[in-house]
């Protein structure tokens, strides 16, 4: 019995060896490995970039973000008008068909926007609830009224995907979660959860059929396995290459590594709670100056980050060139602490996620050590993001590491979340977890809500940015991350990373 089993095992073992190695992939197909699995095939059900990125291949929004700059371009809407503060009129593209053959028209747009406010199927309820009414003017014109002015409304339209009214209503919620029917450049073939998502080119795509015909998307969560997939040739394009493996990959002659400065900045949120030592601006300055960011970038990020002096990145409205980082100067830091009467230090807890940003836990560890050098007794408390983020929402924390970028390229919406005084009535400041508060800033910020003129907006948001970051030190900015991708050389893959880290297959050719 045992021998027979042995024999069978040996035969399987030997017989399989030769067939394993080169799995040739046809010219117009590609295998892409990403770091996080799709959560669902419902385009409104997850606002995580990892899911939106995959959905961008099956669905289109009214607008889209194109190429390496992320410029806003027409998609299912040819153009839009903004006749008054509350109204947005979209003129739709004609002749677009969903993958099931249904034509795309104003009914679908109305249906899709209404679906946003249903918490059972949508994580975009914030967008959904700001809409007062949706009016169908004719088959290809839709007019949307918002409850209050939202200057960045159109900027967000690349994330709001259009669904087919008929097939979404006729199928169960569960089916809609599993099988996407959109207008996108790729049609859904198969999703084996945890294994792969297969898709095939939509030959009737309104922008023209995409160059690559078959795509296999493989989520691989474990970094070293992703590395193995790349080196063994089983994946041709990998996103989310860990910085620890960067040097190894660069040395590999078969691979090309692509760096892209990412939009996301990493910063330490610091409030100004009354009666806390850090209510004193000098203490906040001292903490800022105690942190050696250059060393963090060099040692922890291994050079794959650039220093940040503020939260927004340069293309975002509200980015202020005039803001400079405070220099690293522990002596000055000690002096400031002394002036503020804190020469004996104080205790503070630095909280942070350990599974969200590049090297997040290590950065937090380093910050704690830098603070200790100037006499501040910082305690480290890192935890999984699923526990960390709710604590930020609940306002339980004093000091925490977090990252941010604004998908609309306009800091207006973000500042209402991050630095407006926490106000449950108005719904502002829900991510201002360290209780930063400045009444002047709140007034100016609320005034921007109805400001549509882009130049004026820019000036005011830049002012707010300066007020918050440079004058009040509501946070200690650290750095902008870099996204790292690797592709197999010699296969003619043309790939340009996007600023939002999405991998949109119609932009890749081979």
């Amino acid at each position, binding site marked *: 019995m*045992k021998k027979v*089993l*042995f024999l069978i*095992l040996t035969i399987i*073992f030997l*017989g*399989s*060896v030769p*067939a*394993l*190695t080169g799995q040739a992939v046809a010219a117009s197909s590609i295998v892409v490995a990403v770091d996080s*699995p799709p*959560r*669902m095939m*419902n385009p409104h*059900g*997850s*606002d995580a970039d990892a899911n939106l990125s995959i959905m961008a291949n099956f669905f289109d929004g009214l607008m889209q973000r194109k190429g390496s700059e992320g410029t806003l371009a027409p998609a299912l809407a040819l153009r839009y008008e903004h006749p008054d503060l509350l109204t947005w009129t979209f003129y739709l593209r004609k002749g677009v068909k969903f993958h099931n053959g249904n034509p795309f028209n104003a009914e679908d747009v109305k249906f899709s926007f209404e679906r946003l406010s249903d*918490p*059972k*199927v*949508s*994580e975009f*309820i*914030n967008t959904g*609830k700001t809409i007062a009414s949706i009016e169908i003017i004719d088959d290809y014109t839709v007019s949307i009224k918002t409850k209050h002015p939202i200057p960045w409304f159109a900027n967000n339209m690349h994330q709001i995907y259009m669904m087919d009214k008929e097939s979404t209503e006729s199928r169960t*919620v*569960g089916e809609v*979660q*599993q099988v996407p029917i959109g207008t996108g450049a790729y049609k859904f073939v198969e999703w*084996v*959860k*945890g*294994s792969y998502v297969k898709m095939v080119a939509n030959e009737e795509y309104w922008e023209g059929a995409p160059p690559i015909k078959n795509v296999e998307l*493989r*989520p*691989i*969560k*474990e970094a*070293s*396995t992703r590395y*193995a*997939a790349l*080196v*063994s040739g*089983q994946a041709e394009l990998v996103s989310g290459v860990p910085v620890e493996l960067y040097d190894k990959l660069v040395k590999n002659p078969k691979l090309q590594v692509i760096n892209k400065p990412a939009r996301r900045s990493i910063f330490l949120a610091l409030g100004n709670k009354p009666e806390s030592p850090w209510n004193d601006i000098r203490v906040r300055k001292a903490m800022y100056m105690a942190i050696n960011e250059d060393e963090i970038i060099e040692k922890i990020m291994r050079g794959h980050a650039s220093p940040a002096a503020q939260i927004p990145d340069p293309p975002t409205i509200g980015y202020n060139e005039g803001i400079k980082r405070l220099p690293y100067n522990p002596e000055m830091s000690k002096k400031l602490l002394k002036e503020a009467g804190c020469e004996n230090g104080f205790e503070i807890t630095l909280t942070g996620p350990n*599974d969200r940003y590049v090297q997040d836990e290590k950065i937090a560890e380093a910050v704690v050590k830098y603070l200790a050098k100037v006499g501040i007794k910082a305690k480290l408390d890192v935890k*999984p*993001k*699923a*526990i960390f*983020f*709710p604590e930020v*929402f609940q306002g339980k924390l004093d000091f925490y590491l977090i990252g941010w970028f604004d998908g609309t390229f306009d800091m207006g*919406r973000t500042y209402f*979340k991050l630095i407006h005084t926490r106000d*449950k009535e108005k*719904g*502002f400041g*829900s991510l201002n977890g360290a209780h930063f508060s400045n009444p002047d800033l709140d007034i100016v910020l609320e005034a921007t809500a109805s400001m549509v003129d882009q130049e004026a907006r820019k000036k005011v948001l830049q002012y707010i940015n300066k007020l918050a970051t440079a004058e009040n030190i509501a946070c200690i900015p650290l750095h902008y991350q870099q996204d790292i991708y690797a592709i197999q050389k010699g296969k003619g893959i043309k790939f340009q990373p996007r600023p939002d880290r999405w991998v949109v297959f119609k932009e890749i050719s081979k």
Partner: protein
Amino acid sequence: MIVLLAVSLICYIIFRSSGDPAISMAGQYATFQEIEEVRRVFGLDKPFYIQYVRFITNALKGNFGNSFVNKVPALPLILERLPATVELAMSAIVIAFVLGVGLGVLVSLKPYALRNRFIMAGSLVNISMPTFLTGILLIMVFGVYLKILPPFGRGETVTIGFWRTGFLTLSGVTHLILPAFTLGMYQLAVLLRLTRAGMREVLTEDYIKTAWSKGLSPLKVIFKHALRNALIPVVTMTGLQFGELIAFSFVTELIFQWPGSGNLLLTSIYEQDQPVIVTYIMLAALVILSINILVDILYAILNPKIRYD
């Protein structure tokens, strides 16, 4: 039944006191009111005991609630991924049992031979090496440097009814080898040591000496007389381990990106998908319980002296 109830209650308490799923379900730009609404819609605003009682009554009807993330029933979601885990665990246990018992017998016959000392030392290394390290080493050696085995995934599969199997395709079987070895490695070492200990004890017994002196063939003595008696603790152990392999294969599944239910559990924990986590743990408890019962039955077959009255 009582065990299952206790398990479910403990899970429920743990997950209710850690984090708030409503916040992540409302989206990153949600306001406080919107989060409250989500909580209401999913019944998360109700007091704890009401939620628990509702869960139990639904569970008795076979409805374990909908996943917060996928919005589809949690039980089918897990069952869909279970075949991959069961196949992986089965392969691992077969490898562990066959090699473990085989090598165990081999070692027990000549405990002091050099080759056998090597095997014993190797098994010690195996027991002490954590699974993720074994997995990464195997991937690096066979997948990256030698390039003879695929480093991750499940390969091509064939669907028979609801069961998606990787046993029937070459690529499926080759994809299975590394993860199955990784998963079974620890078990292999344990079974080896157990078999060796049992065999060495049994081989000194009088009836074995009698068997030798009767002139029976070595095969008959070793396998029929000695091994059968040494096997009882080994079978117990194998049974217990099999349940554990199914329930706790997630480390191996993570490393090899194996699309099994352990992988689903990990993702669900990261995303605080409580209905899936609770259902998974209940299911795992059920599997382990039923395997224990099966092992008790096997006992009786192996050793007719054991009777359950």
